[in-house]
């Protein structure tokens, strides 16, 4: 054991700090949640590598599809970019939602949650911290990808308002999918299993969608599947919001899945969390 403080520390300097310290006025639930949000921000500060994980895949996909397939799929790379970029943002957020579940599973396997749960705090505050972390992750990753798109020549036709609306939709999507992984994180005790299982669920959803290719060219059976895929609805709404021409129906359809996921999974997560 490599204890850097090998000299036994004395009780004398310990005693003044062991004075009786009374509990301060109980903080609000919001304050509890914000503290966990602060923890999520600290994680970014101490583990900046995680940002690399977040954006390598989408950047690779963006460059690869735009330049290798873009010409063949849409006539020119820049035309393809306007089709592909809004979709890859959805894919990024859906994949990155897995990290909060992994973080939760890690915390649970280490006994950290036992400490949180033995504190007199708002029961759901730790989950609120995960959500804050998710929002940050999604926002940072989406901003980086949009910046790369802009450098490659992508210009959102719907301007800043459209892009902001698209980002709001994106964060809502991330919020909804986050609960899938929070539930998995509560059930599965090994973080890597959460990731593997999560990716297994998401891969078909992301790839059998209209994110990369317009389903018009697909065989009928596949086109039906792709058009029924909620991820396709999300990508379509994102395209509409960023490139102009989004309909209310498209946006509502894109919101349906995250809203449904939240409505079903939040009570489930709460029950699982209480049962822990």
């Amino acid at each position, binding site marked *: 054991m490599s204890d850097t403080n090998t000299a036994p520390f004395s009780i004398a300097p*310990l005693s003044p700090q062991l*004075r009786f310290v009374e509990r301060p006025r109980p903080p609000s639930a919001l304050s509890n949640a914000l503290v966990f949000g602060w923890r999520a921000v*600290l994680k970014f500060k101490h583990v900046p590598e995680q940002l690399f994980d977040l954006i390598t895949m989408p950047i690779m996909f963006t460059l690869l599809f735009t330049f290798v397939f873009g010409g063949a799929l849409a006539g020119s790379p820049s035309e393809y970019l306007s089709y592909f970029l809004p979709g890859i943002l959805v894919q990024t957020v859906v994949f990155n939602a897995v990290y909060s579940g992994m973080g939760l599973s890690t915390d649970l396997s280490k006994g950290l949650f036992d400490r949180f749960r033995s504190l007199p705090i708002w029961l759901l505050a730790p989950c609120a911290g995960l959500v804050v972390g998710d929002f940050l992750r999604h926002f940072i990753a989406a901003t980086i990808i949009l910046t790369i798109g802009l450098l490659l020549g992508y210009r959102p036709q719907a301007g800043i308002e459209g892009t902001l609306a698209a980002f709001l939709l994106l964060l809502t999507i991330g919020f909804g999918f986050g609960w899938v992984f929070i539930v998995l994180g509560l059930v599965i005790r090994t973080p890597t299993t959460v990731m593997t299982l999560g990716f297994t669920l998401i891969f078909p959803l992301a790839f059998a969608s209209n994110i990369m290719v317009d389903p018009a060219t697909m065989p009928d059976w596949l086109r039906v599947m792709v058009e029924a895929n909620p991820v396709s609805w999300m990508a379509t709404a994102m395209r509409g919001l960023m490139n102009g021409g989004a309909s209310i129906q498209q946006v509502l359809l894109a919101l349906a899945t995250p809203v449904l996921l939240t409505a079903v999974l939040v009570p489930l997560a709460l029950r699982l969390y209480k049962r822990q």
Partner: protein
Amino acid sequence: MDRCGPADADKMTGITMEMRTTQDEGAGRYPDAAKAAIVARGLVKRFGDVHAVNGVDLDVERGTIFAILGPNGAGKTTLMRMLATLTAPDGGSASVMGYDLVAAPAVVRGVIAMTGQFASLDEDLTGRENLLLIARLWGFRGRAARARADELLAAFDLTDAATRQVKSYSGGMRRRLDIAASLVVTPGVLFLDEPTTGLDPNARQDVWRMIRALADSGVTILLTTQYLDEADQLAARIAVIDQGRKIAEGTSRELKATVGSGFLHVAVNDSAQIDAAAATLKERLGENVQRSAEGAHLSVKAPTPQAANEALAALIAAGIDIADFSLSSPSLDEVFFALTGRAAPVGSDSHAPEDASS
């Protein structure tokens, strides 16, 4: 000097008042101040068909150290998790510092702190950030939170490591930080689940010293351990748990007394004679003979020194070549053996009685 608890009214006068600490708050903040810190009656926890805890009663006096001793899988951790509101009991009732565990778990959480078996820290954060996190969750704000974190870091000799990530800490440092995190607000009851498991002897001594200092300051401490000597060293009272049941409880002295007045330890020179020696001792003293792991030592309960003396004489008369002998009060290993009929728990670092041979 400044170490003080609810009962130490006189000592409170020397305290800086930057955090709200008055003797009234200290003495009067719990209902029924005279009552026990923990009262449990018939606590039960089932996992499927397994009764992890099967009807345990506990009475822990305030300001004392109480040890729950038992082998792996005895139900110690489950019992502690129930008392710390982390898992709901399937039967029975309990109160902590006068608050009912089932009816008011949120209130109980306000007067306890728990340090789990595995360091309950965020490895990615620094030591200071970990303490700040807990301080802010308790409701300390801004400067008060920072002051409390720094104060605890100094108290636990972690100031130099304050800005390092916990993942770089040694086992002993983690334990200290973990316990510090449990003291952000002085708890009425501190739960320590196997506080020294996996620590080297130096770090272990540190933790023991810390636990004693805490108890002196008025905190009630409930700890689980599978180290028999740990319970002996620290605890005013010990409950021995085996297979979900409490099989004995008392002071270290009382537990030893239930086993008898003392033990006769004999070592023989010729290992071929060990069976004959054991048989003679059993015949003379009428008790089961416990063999040391290496098989060279025998230990047997002796009701009186005279009986031990006669047993030794019988060994010599039988031609047994005695290498060494001694008479001792029983160790907790022997208590456990006497209570359960089984050897001391696996994983125990407890040793053969120190005075058995030399």
